[in-house]
């Protein structure tokens, strides 16, 4: 007969640490938690250090609309309300990137972002990165109603500096390693910056700090580490993702250099997102899950 060893008494330190440990385990079980934390940090950094003029009302409207639309969508589909976390990410990203004059435009952007996740799908996977879709389509739609439109993106709102580079890079790395999408980010940024370097420094002959300025631009880094790396709205096969991300990088370079589009990466991602189903068809891969089933308690 086996003797059962007596349950060891937890030390005081372990007992105090236990709830924190539990919170940490829960927190680190879903990469979206990290993303929400980092995006919120960037938002606070922008508001308090860069002195952005951001209205609390706009922030609330974005957040509440995103959550509401997501909740409605979940109710009619999976009934799994942990999907609200994705809505949080979309809301924070919209606040970080999209500017608008009118609150209605903000509402429109939120509805389009979350709505696209539920309505524009192929084989049970949404095609567009929600924030990207929301931003681009809102910009286009408002142009139909108001001359010049009502929504815009300010690529210069972050500036360019090394601190930003390390902050966004580090935060991005933490998230990307968890969701195994570092390859996407690298493929995009290497293609985009490589072409930029080749043209601006090697061919045109600008001095190197001209390139450094582009390299450390906050909006580019945010896009690279937090937008194009959306684990769901990208090809499922790893090799396919690298090819696709490189294509986005090349198109973004072309748009910014030849057509002088300031927010080129956003447009490039928008135009190439419909290719994702094509890649999935010919180079299939495992579909991404935010939380592994065995981790769900």
């Amino acid at each position, binding site marked *: 007969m086996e003797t059962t060893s007596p349950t060891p008494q937890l030390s005081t330190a372990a007992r105090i640490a236990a709830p924190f440990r539990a919170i940490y385990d829960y927190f680190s079980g879903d990469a979206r938690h990290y993303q929400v934390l980092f995006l919120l940090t960037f938002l606070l950094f922008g508001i308090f250090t860069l002195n952005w003029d951001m209205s609390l*009302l706009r922030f*609330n409207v974005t957040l509440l609309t995103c959550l509401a639309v997501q909740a409605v969508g979940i109710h009619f589909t999976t009934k799994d309300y*942990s999907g*609200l976390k994705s809505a949080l990410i979309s809301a924070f990203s919209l606040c970080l990137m999209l500017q608008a004059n009118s609150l209605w435009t903000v509402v429109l952007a939120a509805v389009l972002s979350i709505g696209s996740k539920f309505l524009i799908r192929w084989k049970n996977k949404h095609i567009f990165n929600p924030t990207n879709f929301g931003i681009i389509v809102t910009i286009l739609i408002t142009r139909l109603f108001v001359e010049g439109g009502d929504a815009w993106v300010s690529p210069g709102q972050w500036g360019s500096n090394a601190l930003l580079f390390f902050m966004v890079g580090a935060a991005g790395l933490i998230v990307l390693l968890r969701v195994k999408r570092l390859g996407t980010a690298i493929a995009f940024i290497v293609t985009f910056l490589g072409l930029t370097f080749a043209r601006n420094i090697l061919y045109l002959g600008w001095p190197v700090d001209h390139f450094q300025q582009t390299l450390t631009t906050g909006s580019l880094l945010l896009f690279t580490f937090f937008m194009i790396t959306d684990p769901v709205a990208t090809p499922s096969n790893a090799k396919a993702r690298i090819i696709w991300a490189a294509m986005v990088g090349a198109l973004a370079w072309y748009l910014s250099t030849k057509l002088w589009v300031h927010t080129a990466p956003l447009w490039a991602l928008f135009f190439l997102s419909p290719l994702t189903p094509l890649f999935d068809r010919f180079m299939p891969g495992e579909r991404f899950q935010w939380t592994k*089933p065995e981790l*769900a308690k």
Partner: protein
Amino acid sequence: MNRHIITLFSGLLLSTASFAFCGFYVAKADVKLFNKTSQVILVRDGEKSVITMSSDFQGEVKDFAMVVPVPEVLKQDNIHVVERLLFDKLDAYSAPRLVEYYDEDPCYEPPRDYYLYDRMDMPMAGAAMERAESVNSVNYQVKVEAKYVVGEYDILILSAKESSGLERWLIDNGYKIPTGAKEVLDPYIKSNLKFFVVKVNLEEHKKLGKQELSPIQIKFNSPKFMLPIRLGMANASGPQDMIVYAFTKNGRVEVTNYRTVEAPTGQNVPLFVQQKFGEFYKDVYTRTWKREGKSVAILEYAWDVSGFVNQFCDPCVGPPPMLQDFANAGVDWVQEYHGGYQGNVFFTRMHVTYDRTTFPQDLMFQETPNKQQYQARYVITHPAASTFSCDKANAYLADLQKRRQKELNNMVSLAGWDAMKHASYPSEYNKYIKKSKSGSGKKQGGFFSWSSGTNGGQQLPVMLLSVLSLSLVFFALTRRPLKRS
């Protein structure tokens, strides 16, 4: 009786103020507040650009020369000279301003508020380049694409095949290009830019009889909305300043490859700033520029000046642009209408201080739909002219001291001036405080108008909304995923 005299006197002051603002320039006393400041008017409509450049060249006219990269060979009717007055007008209209309020007398029925304005004058200086006789030579690989005489200027448009040839041509023709400029000639040539080269035609200059050199205006089509500041960067003598006045159809212009930040605005400052407002704003600007990392454009004014607008400024420091000004600046989508004009126009004023290290790239702009209005405005408030002989006076005086202390603090944080020099400023009016018999020292709310408006009515609902949002965020984060069977 006293009150009526004040009313009349201040009324006179007001009327002279609105028509003789020239007399209230504090900054006119010091000639060059910002060194080497050039001014540029940028008009952008789709792909059409009109750029008007004003350089306050101080030397001999025969020594004047200017080189500007342009995207195409400009035709003669796309090159004009304009009056310098246009720049002065736009500067006066949009310069950072100091406004003046008067406290209401806590003991009497309040009279009207009065507003007196002061403004910053920003004269400019341009980089000087010498010129000699022109030398024609084919082996520079420089082609003179066009040659015009416009106003008092001789204009050449050059295309070059490579930078050393162009450099030699410019030097041999007496254009001393700054050292920093050499490294940008190559990228400009490879980007297929032409070079718009200007010098003064001495005959025409004498014929026209102008005292100062006229600003030059060029029109062209280009998908690029930018200012090639890299060519103008002199190396040794420190940063250069540039004021950009932008006119667009729909909204604010901002820089896309550098941050655009707003100059601090709306803060109360001590009364004595009025005498030194130019110096004050210069220090405010410099501190802001340094604090924000120097690689920034600073927004000083943004306003909707469309034809249908009621208010072109608030307060008005100088007259707003009129139909003729728009025509002179190159805003060609505005038409005459019932004595005024019609058309959508948005005006943005940006101030950039740049040098080689802080601005490695040329300035790239975009027009945004942002119609939010903005002005760099600082406020002085005169204490009430009162005998302070009523019960409410003590509370007012206590608040006055607090407010004056705050004004002093603002001055320190905005301009970095020394508060110790004005240590007695907050308590200047304390001599009027009467010792009350009850000795309660009860402080009540002030009776005077604060300059910053509070939208207190909106605060509570937004706060409640924020609480709701916060709780929903927490709710969302704590949703565990459903078990998948």
